[in-house]
């Protein structure tokens, strides 16, 4: 965004463009589900009619990382799965955000064993953690609201997201 960097500072135009872009981004998140365990069941429930994540503007679930901007890691990540998850994260276009859903994705949960990654945030960035084993759909909706808060406060000319 060359224009804003030329203007610099907190000009009227910059803040307005920022807020409009952020408003658009945060109400049209395209989640990429990475469901590997029981958290995925709760995630599916969140996507479906009863809890209905589309009320919050994140209903276009994409199974291709190229088309998504919100990665939801829901479930245990094993040694064999971690390179796959990293690859998928790198395949997502900027800007992108990550939710680590459930105890296993966040810290390994009860599976403190040789094959399980003790928290995906060791090896990739995570924006919001969802506690629970598995978390209820309301928790995931709350995490989505947190992500929207983060997106809303973001400055797209900050250089953080490759702009």
């Amino acid at each position: 965004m060359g224009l804003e960097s030329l203007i610099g500072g907190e000009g009227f135009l910059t803040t307005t463009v920022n807020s409009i872009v952020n408003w658009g981004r945060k109400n049209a998140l395209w989640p990429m589900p990475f469901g590997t365990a029981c958290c995925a069941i709760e995630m599916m429930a969140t996507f479906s009619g009863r809890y209905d994540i589309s009320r919050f503007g994140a209903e276009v679930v994409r199974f291709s990382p190229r088309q998504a901007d919100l990665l939801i890691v829901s479930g245990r990540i094993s040694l064999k799965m971690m390179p796959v998850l990293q690859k998928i994260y790198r395949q997502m276009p900027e800007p992108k955000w990550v939710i680590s859903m459930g105890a296993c994705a966040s810290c390994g949960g009860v599976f403190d064993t040789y094959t399980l990654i003790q928290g995906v945030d060791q090896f990739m960035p995570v924006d919001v953690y969802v506690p629970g084993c598995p978390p209820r759909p309301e928790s995931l909706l709350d995490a989505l609201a947190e992500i929207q808060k983060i997106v809303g406060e973001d400055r797209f000319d900050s250089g953080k997201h490759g702009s």
Partner: protein
Amino acid sequence: MTPESMAVDMADTYSPCDALPAPLRSQVIDQIVHQGQLALHCTSADQRPMLEHFKTQQGYDFLVDVTAIDHLGMDRTERFEVVYVLRRTRENSHQFRLHVWLSEDSPNLPTVFDLWDSARWGERETHDMFGIVFDGNPDLRRLLMPEDYPGFPLLKDYPLRGMGERRQFPNVVPRGDQIVEEEPGDYPTSIGRGMHTPEYTEEVRRDSKPR
């Protein structure tokens, strides 16, 4: 006598050991019935002839599973037992286990994938978890663990939390307009703060004390 009760009686008394030729039968070390399940024990030298006999002469047409037991620290002559679960699915259906005693010094057994195709994956898994080598198996890659995994995790002397394999990945982080790989930093919840450490147990005990 109804056919059903005959079948029950047969399951109780029948042993494929009785139909073995005399030289093989004398090699059966032990014959144990526990919970109605029969287990024959033999040494690794007799594994292949016995399994061939059960397949070709007695009609055990289905190898249910190949697995192993690690008897490290137990009062045993050999460290390993490789277990074959055999099943006859046609007439006189029957199932039993063959336990093959295997020493730690040479954990090798001839493959049986030419007798039962299901041995391919069973032997791969047993190799993956216990490091037992099945000579002649053409595709003895790891089945469950990553192919570059160094250890054999179901051995009794392998630590539960591995030997650092969980920390082998780079940290993928965005820096400016590109994504770079960095060394992962210290991670307090997995190092020294795992759920099964003595410190954690002590902490839980202290917290759960009535005040």
